[in-house]
């Protein structure tokens, strides 16, 4: 019990130091622009199909599942607005972030873990290159920027999925559907939901890097780094979501 408590506090201390190092080094040159762009491509562009398919299915399923209940009250016309609101405020950010936690955070954890095990990180250090700057800062910056963009993409595709879902049972034109969607949305629905996605992105990158970068020697630690990155990132997403919703509720 004492040992486990000690481990929790040690871990919390290490995460804090790791995060503090990020803010200390992120504004200092040299800036690894090329690697940052490469990471944006790997993290953002390569996740598009997965996020797109998931977003489309979420929109479609949400529409199909909600339709019978709304139909009972004769409120089918609310369906586009309800689907769009649910997707933009909650479902698309959280589901996209969870997918990214599974794909990106574990990928970063495993990649950096294996680089540590095969002494590639040490090789950078002995050739007087800052591996934290090259490997960690670029990845965290890329996830912080790309996850919000992926969420916006998932919002769009999800709303399109809703359109397909509605047209299975009814005949609604695309123009009419989007008019209803846009009329039900306000900036207050979009802005807080978008702000929280930056935090999702930051922590997805941060946790992946934190778990992988100091991995111990041995291939077992690579698996552990990948696994614990997914678990910790997923949990963090729910905690951030809870806090974000509470804060939004307080102010708006």
């Amino acid at each position, binding site marked *: 019990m004492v040992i486990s408590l000690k481990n929790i506090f040690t871990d919390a201390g290490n995460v804090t130091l790791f995060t503090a190092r990020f803010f200390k080094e992120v504004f200092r040159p*040299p800036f690894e622009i090329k690697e940052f762009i490469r990471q944006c491509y790997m993290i953002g562009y390569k996740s598009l199909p997965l996020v797109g398919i998931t977003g489309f299915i979420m929109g479609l399923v949400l529409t199909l599942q909600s339709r019978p209940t709304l139909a009972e009250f004769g409120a089918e016309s609310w369906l586009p607005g309800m689907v769009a609101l649910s997707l933009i405020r909650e479902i698309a950010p959280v589901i996209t972030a969870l997918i990214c936690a599974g794909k990106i955070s574990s990928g970063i954890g495993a990649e950096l873990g*294996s*680089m540590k095990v*095969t*002494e*590639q990180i*040490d*090789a950078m*250090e*002995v*050739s*007087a*290159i800052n591996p934290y700057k090259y490997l960690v800062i670029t990845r965290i910056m890329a996830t912080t920027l790309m996850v919000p963009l992926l969420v916006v993409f998932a919002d769009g595709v999800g709303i399109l999925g809703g359109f397909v879902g509605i047209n299975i049972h009814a005949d609604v034109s695309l123009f009419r559907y989007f008019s209803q969607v846009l009329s039900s949305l306000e900036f207050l629905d979009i802005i807080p939901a978008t702000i929280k996605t930056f935090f999702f992105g930051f922590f997805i990158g941060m946790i992946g890097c934190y778990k992988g970068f100091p991995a111990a020697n041995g291939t077992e630690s690579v698996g552990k780094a990948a696994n614990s990155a997914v678990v910790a990132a997923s949990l963090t997403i729910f905690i951030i979501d809870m806090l974000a919703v509470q804060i939004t509720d307080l102010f708006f």
Partner: protein
Amino acid sequence: MIQAETTIKKGIGAYSTAPVINIKGLYKSFGEHDDVLKGVDLSVKKGENLVVLGKSGSGKSITIKCLVGLVKADKGEIKVFDTDITALNTNQLNAIRIRIGFLFQNSALYDSMTVRQNLEFPLKRHSKKLSSKDVEDAVTEALESVGLSEAIDKMPSELSGGMRKRIGLARTLILKPEIMLYDEPTTGLDTITSREISELILAIQKKSKTSSIIITHDMACAKLTGDRLVILKDGVIEAEGSYATLEKSNDDWVRSFFI
């Protein structure tokens, strides 16, 4: 400690007596009951190849990792180019690190980069004024020096163990180091490739006048490359001398390395 006379090998060339590496009383432990180094004293003269022998876990790799600041020593003085590196901050340490080449046991090539990118990676970061032609020339020269010009656009996964070692060597040589640290350069290689790598180490010493520490279990490599040998036992230097003298040592344990 068993002392033996140090000799200079024929054909390698004389080296200066001033040490470029001087380690005194180096201690390192991992936890309370895991003392790895218990007062290592070591020096390497300019242009000299020092071979470090010892059983697995005797602290050979930790010693050279302390030398480049990868592992922080608990106690002791580590002087490189007459500067105690234990007292330096990261920037000062990096200025020393640029002058040291380190060949890792598994070569440590960057998996996500081609051979060309592996070689360009340290060069572009430390020589920002170089034109792309200068970089290209330096890469070509480094690859030619290890005899692997044809591998320039290959990925590390496409290379054999021996080729990976050579590319690892080329990557360290591109920064023109004054000191080379080799961590088991021939481990896992066949006899012929091991000999080729050992000859390459000698050629680098001859061409670039580097001082080197070579950690090895390969006695053929030790015989070919070493101007002087030291043997580590339980975290201290147990014996020191040339290959010929240590081979004829009166101590059975020392002689057991040469059987």
